[in-house]
């Protein structure tokens, strides 16, 4: 069964057309990640799904029911916000129980669910504290706890980890993945972060300018991007693009090669001048100029490449992608 299904959803703010004909089906229990550049409409799409904004046109189904006219609290969803959005006047317990009280759940049910959620998230010692007395990571867990106690069919996360530091972000990411397995509910997750998208997602939706560019599993998108935008968006460092003419005379297409597919070779086709070297220990990223184009090669292991050096790079023709002038994938 589909947990969420969007049909030709459009959203305009006045004259600004933000979401354009979005079609999407999320299966039950799936973890779907929305990625895309800033301002492409990820948050807006999430808010339309939540019912915080009305779709201008189109149909939204959650668990099979059309919910276009259903208020957010009755859609069977829960949302975790980037800014946590905890109620400042309620303690952790109050924050977690408010929605259940509104639903009119019995005391014992409320108590049981709070117990369960706070155990899952290690929040038991903090139940009586107020949000202002918690660290960022704890607040984030409370925000997630507030969503869990409602036992929704669909979780919505809007960049939940972007306010956390790197180490905490990784831990929380792993916790969210574990939660997803444990709860088995469908989740929609908005992020800027490549790693979050690749590691958490069953399916990734790449959005650009309010349109779905591609929808599929992380590896599908990585190995088989539909166009130059998706190819460049996924993967870090991102894919190198240069005119195919540099390799074969008279070719006016664009060629794309992932940094990890480039290697140093005496008789390499590409001759580039090294402008910067990043030595990461396990990897070495070589940033070089190829005529007017910047290309990045990700070399495994440690290499003694110096700035200013002239380097010949090569790649396996099978690993190259080809795009036409409009950025559509050719093969």
């Amino acid at each position: 069964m589909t947990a969420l299904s969007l049909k030709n959803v459009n959203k305009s703010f006045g004259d600004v057309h933000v979401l354009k004909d979005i079609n999407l089906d999320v299966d039950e229990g799936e973890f779907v990640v929305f990625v895309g550049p800033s301002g492409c409409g990820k948050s807006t799409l999430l808010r339309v799904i939540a019912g915080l904004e009305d779709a201008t046109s189109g149909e939204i189904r959650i668990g099979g029911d059309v919910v276009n006219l259903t208020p957010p609290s009755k859609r069977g969803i829960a949302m975790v916000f980037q800014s946590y959005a905890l109620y400042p006047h309620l303690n952790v317990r109050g924050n977690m129980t408010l929605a259940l009280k509104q639903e009119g759940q019995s005391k014992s049910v409320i108590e049981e669910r709070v117990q369960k959620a706070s155990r899952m998230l290690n929040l038991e010692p903090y139940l009586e504290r107020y949000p202002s007395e918690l660290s960022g990571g704890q607040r984030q867990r409370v925000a997630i706890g507030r969503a869990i106690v409602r036992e929704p069919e669909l979780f919505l996360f809007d960049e939940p980890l972007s306010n956390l530091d790197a180490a905490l972000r990784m831990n929380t990411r792993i916790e969210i993945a574990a939660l997803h397995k444990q709860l088995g509910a469908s989740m929609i997750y908005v992020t800027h972060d490549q790693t979050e998208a690749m590691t958490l997602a069953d399916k990734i939706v790449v959005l650009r300018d309010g349109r779905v560019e591609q929808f599929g599993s992380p590896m599908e998108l990585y190995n088989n991007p539909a166009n130059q935008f998706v190819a460049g968006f996924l993967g870090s460092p991102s894919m190198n693009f240069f005119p195919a003419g540099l390799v074969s005379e008279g070719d006016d297409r664009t060629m794309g090669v992932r940094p990890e597919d480039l290697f140093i070779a005496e008789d390499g086709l590409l001759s580039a001048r090294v402008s910067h070297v990043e030595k990461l220990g396990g990897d070495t990223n070589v940033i070089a100029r190829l005529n007017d184009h910047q290309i990045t090669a990700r070399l495994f292991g440690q290499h003694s490449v110096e700035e200013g050096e002239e380097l010949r790079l090569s790649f396996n023709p099978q690993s190259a992608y080809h795009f036409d002038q409009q950025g559509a994938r050719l093969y």
Partner: protein
Amino acid sequence: MNKARSNPLNTAMMHGALIVYTLIALFPVFVILINSFKERRSIFREPLALPNSESFSTIGYETVMQQGDFFLYFQNSMIVTVASLFFVLLFGAMAAYALSEYRFKGNMLMGLYLALGIMIPIRIGTVAILEMMVATGLVNTLWALILVYTAQGLPLAVFILSEFMRQVSDDLKNAGRIDGLSEYTIFFRLVLPLVRPAMATVAVFNMIPIWNDLWFPLILAPAEETKTLTLGSQVFIGQFVTDWNAVLSALSMAILPVLVLYVIFSRQLIRGITSGAVK
């Protein structure tokens, strides 16, 4: 702590300036207070001298207590001020929330229309207001004053509060909506507590002009039983003779409640002024 603040010379100068300012601000109040306890002749002979055994007199207070129903005036002023503030804050906050939170046709125009009152003094409409009050039979009731002061305070209240409400996190309100709170609960339980400093600012700005107003009590509610303190005190100021003892005593007593209200609001007010800077 920053450098400027920890430098002792700077600190001394800053405190010096503040103390001088405080003295200047308190001086008139002080003069009123000491002279209210002196007999008439000493008030004029040595206005700055403290009352001593010779010049001490409570004749002013006695006159005030005897003449007219001072406590009733006092009560009237209090009712009018507090009720007006309450309505200004309540309706001002509600209008501000509607303007800042909901997108509807004419939102901008409505905001401008409501803010227009800041520039147009309500006294221009005195005649029309009086006619209206006569027609509705509200003349010589406290309601007449409360309604007028509420109208007078609303424009600035809406203007200031809507600015502050725009800053309240959308996520918080949306979290409330997802949790099933009604728009009223979101407004009263989530938004209002967060703009409390701004509400205190509005309250203080409105409180003093209302408390001190003579114009509207004189025109709309001059009856004995609806006189406000300011209007009641006027009996001591005659065209030819003024009972200064009584005037000063009445003024001294009129300061008190404003002071109390101010202390209540000031904690919030200070937070309001510094809320942008700190944090």
